[in-house]
Every structure is written in C-alpha cells, then in structure tokens.
C-alpha cells in the first residue's frame, strides 16, 4: 500500500501534491509516499489542516504504485491529473491535425 496526498491550490486551481517537507508542489514525482496506516493518517490530517487554512481544496489521499519510473497513480483519473490531458490541445492539437492531414 502506497499513498500520496493531492489537492488543487485554492488561488490558481493547479493540481498539487504534498512533499516530504510539507510543501504543496506541482509535480507528483517528489510527492511524499505514505506506506503504513500512521503515515496515511498523518497525510489526512495535513490535508484537513490545509483545507481549513484555505490553501487547497478537493484534497484526497490516492493510491499509487512505486515503479522504476517513479510514482504511478493507480486510477486513470489521477494519472491524467498528474500528467495532464492525454490529448494534445491548443496549438499542439492544430499541428497534430495538420500533420495527419498531410
């Protein structure tokens, strides 16, 4: 069982993860991994406090796998949250369409 704490920052909405220093960071790679019940409980406490301090919203403890390539969320939803949309968007999408059309 490995879990990390995630949320969105109140002020800009960006997805963030809690690191070992107790900071909210914008990449999952350096998130603090809780591997036993006490550590998970501590994460939940930290999350509650951050919500009541109006730093973050939509806080959640999520399941992850530890792989050679780094932290890999179990749910697709969380993989998309941590790695961004699975499709190109904006100008990148335009380029993709034009390449395909050519």
């Amino acid at each position, binding site marked *: 069982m490995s879990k990390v704490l995630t949320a969105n920052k109140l002020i800009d909405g960006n997805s963030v993860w809690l690191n070992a220093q107790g900071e909210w960071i914008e990449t999952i790679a350096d998130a603090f991994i809780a591997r036993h019940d006490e550590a998970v409980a501590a994460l939940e406490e930290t999350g509650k406090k951050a919500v009541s301090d109006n730093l973050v919203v939509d806080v959640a403890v999520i399941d992850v796998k530890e792989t050679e390539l780094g932290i890999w969320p179990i749910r697709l939803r969380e993989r998309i949250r941590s790695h961004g949309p699975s499709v190109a968007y*904006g100008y990148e999408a335009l380029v993709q369409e034009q390449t395909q059309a050519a």
Partner: protein
Amino acid sequence: MYRYDEFDHAFVKERVAQFRDQVERRVSGDITEDAFKPLRLMNGLYLQLHAYMLRIAVPYGTMSPVQMRKLAHIARTYDRGYGHFTTRQNIQFNWPKLSDIPDILEELASVEMHAIQTSGNCIRNVTTDQFAGAAADEIADPRPYAEILRQWSSVHPEFSFLPRKFKIAVTGAPHDRAAIQVHDIGLQLVKNEDDEIGFKVYIGGGQGRTPMIAKKVRDFLPEEDLLTYVTAIMRVYNLNGRRDNKYKARIKILVHETGLDELKAQIEAEWQHLKDTDLKLPDADIEAITKYFEKPNLADRAEGWAQLAQWKKADAAFSGWIQQNVGPHQHPDYGTVTISLKPIGGVPGDATDAQMDLIADLAEEFGHHEIRVTHEQNLVFPHVALADLEPLYRVLAANGLATGNAGLVTDIIACPGLDYCALANARSIPVAQEISNRFGDAERQKTIGELKIKISGCINACGHHHVGHIGILGVEKKGTELYQITLGGSADENTSVGQIMGPGFEPEAITDAIEKVIDTYLELRVSDDETFIETYRRLGMKPFKTALYGEKTAA
C-alpha cells in the same frame, strides 16, 4: 443583435464587483469552500482536474466579432491560447486562475458579456436555433424571447437555489434545431388561427442519468404570458422538486412522480395568481426587444447563383463543403454557413485564439457582423451572400476551418471527458478523434450520409449521448474505461432516447464496433437516401446487435 443599455451595463458591472468581493472573502477565509462553491458556479467557475474552468455565456449562441476578439484575447492572456465551445452554445476556458477571474469578468463586461448562471442550480443560459433570424423555415425569430428570458432569469432572488440546474430552450421553426424536448422547459413558437404569436410549452425533458422526453403542458401560450407562466413553473418546481437525491432533483422527475395532469393543474393554479401581475409582458416591450434583432440589410446579390454553380463545378472539396455546411436562407441570394470545429482527428469544439480572431475578421468581411455558436459545437455565420462563399471558403480552408462535415459522421459532439472533467469516468476526446480519423475520408462520409455521433464521458450526459443516432457513454469498470453504445436517439422534432445495445467495449475496440454498426447500416439501407436513423427506426436494434454480438446474444 441585442445591445446592452445603461441598465444592463450597470447590472453586469455590479455583478463583477460582487464576485470580486466574494473571491476576496473566499481567499481570506470568510467563506468556506462549501459555501463558495454554489457562488462560483453561479458565475460559471468550476474546479476541474487540472485547474479551474470558466464557462462564459454566449446568450442563445449569438455573438459579435468584437466579442469573439475578446474571447481570443482572454484565451491568449489568461489561458493557454484556446477555448472550447460547448453544447449549451457557450465557451469555456480550461486553465484560468481564481485570482484572475474578476479581471476576466471585467474584460467580458466591457464587450457586453458575462459568465452569469452558466452553472449552478439556477436558470442556465437560454439556448435556441443557431439559424434563428435566418432560417428559411422559421415562423418567428426566437431570440427576442430568449433575451427576455435571459434578463428575467438573471440573479433571480427566488430561483437562485433551485433543487437542480434548469435549462430552457426556444425554437422558432417547426424543424427543431434547439433540442427543446430534452430541456426542463422547451418553448416552440407557433401562430394561432388569428395569426397571433405564442408558444407551445413543454416541460420535464432532460438527459443525465434518467433521460426523459418533455411533455406538452400548453398548446398555445400567448407571448404576453411568457414570464408569468415560466414563473409559475419555476415556483412549483422550487417548492416541490426533490432535494433528497441530486439524481432525482430535475423537474423531469417531478413530472414523472407527480403525474403530468396533477403538476399541470398546480402550475395553472399558480399561474392564475400571476397572470395579471407586473410580469405580464406589454406589447411595447416585446416590440422594443424584437427591434434589436432586425435582420441586417441584405442587398440583392443575384450574381452569386451563377458564380456558385461555376465554383462548385471547378472544385469538388468546395462543392462538398457547400453541400454539407451551407443551408437555405430567408433571402434567396444568401445562405447560412456552418464553420466546422470538427477537423478530422481534432478536438470537437476547440478553437485557438488566432482562429477566433480570424473568424471575427471574416464575420465582419462576409458575415454582416454576426457569429453563432451551435449546440453541436460548431460556429455559424447566419447571413452570407452566395457570391461571397468562395472567397470565405478559401480563407477558412487555409486555416483548418473548412471541414465539410456538418451533420456527417465526423461532426461528433463530445464532452471534455476525463481529460479535463472532475466528474468524468472515461475519456471522450480520444474516442471522438479515433472515430473521426477512421471515417475521415470525404467520400466515405458522404456515402454514409447524415449521422450524429454523440459521446459522453459519464452518466451526466453533457455529450448528449442519449440523443445521438449513435451514442457512446464512457464508464469506469474495474479501474478501466468501457464504452457503451446506444442507438436510435434523436433530438429534433422527433425526439427519441437511444437504446443500449449490449455490453460495453474497451477503448481499443470501440471504433471497430462503431464501424461495424455503420457497415451494417450501409448493407441494410433500402436506398442511398435512407439515413441511419431511418434505417434504425425501420428495423430496430436486432440486426445491429446481431452484427456486433452475434446471433445468440441478439435473440
């Protein structure tokens, strides 16, 4: 189109200031997230997977070039250079910061726009026919009534905390392009035997978890009674709609559980008290609002007929675009033009800031300064001279905006799905892209003919899958995405809810399954003119099911 007067300007300015204050109090901690959420939703602000999302109202889908340029500016300045046009004829931005929202709203107010009631349990943006005021089959222009409803519903003190969201659509033509029968209130403009204008009124349509087709409650409601009658419906709903279960809170469930006759009696009883109040519309007010929507001065351009015939002969792609994307106009020398936001393999409904700027320029040059957003996530120029179609097409084509697929298999509606949406269970966009690529060949699409595919990434049905000729619903099963297919849905004057075919398909298999359904249709149709939905209605589910699952399952 409608222009703000001093009153509207002052109102929107106050609304922006009100929201700025709410944001400040949220950040300072005076408002909790629970209490703030309905407030921000009522101003179109969601929190999605990656960021906030701001949905901006395009009232009944009508926009000016100046407004479109402002949207481009917002995309560039506050977002990531693109926006997404939605099935409620609005636009949404996927990456704004909460701290920037008040400034964005102020920018919008400067061009007579806002984000009021694009979400939340209140009366949402009123939608209508994208060809309103131009379509050849129109009885009356629905936009003045949509505008009156927009004003009346804005920050309504009694109806801002309804049991659930509330959607109203108005159509002015017998061929319904506004999907009124899947709305909480659907209004169809009709004339009575004395040639007076009024509405056929429907209530209780909706999609979501429990799709229902609206029921008719009035054959003819005089136009002067529009606001009194809608108020009566709203009050009965606000007091009696279910609040114990959000999936049973829409008016469709109230209609279903109370019974149409009983509910109709309650509405009529409430209306008896309201019909002669201040909300009864004076003729002068209806006329004054209607004046804003007078058609532009369309000069005769008869030379376009011969030119068009020549151009079509010379260029097959142009000819295909004309056939699909240009419709009949009230003026014989003009047409309505659909600008497809469904490039082959693209993201349905997305446009970059540069495309928005370009469309604004083209609307000024060729489109009499009018742009519409369609509920099928395309854009429309409602008044283009036939003589201007070729030059317009050239510029659109050079910028990836001339896909001639309106109404065809690649003109797919798709919600943002799990790539953006916090509620989604599965992705929608990649499925749309793969189907679009599979059927991208122009000839193949033409052979298949009219076919509406609609994709939702969860049961909330923002992608309107229930009313797709082919609907696709993404669900999550054991941690993976699974796609269910429905057939036979439709959202026009013959509205029907699609039926589920059978077990769902994995992401790798869904496009093949769709192809099999379409190939089956091509084999079974009696002529090239029989559309998919006609074949389905003639034969039912069975042959499609057999093709997809084999003889045994279908029996």
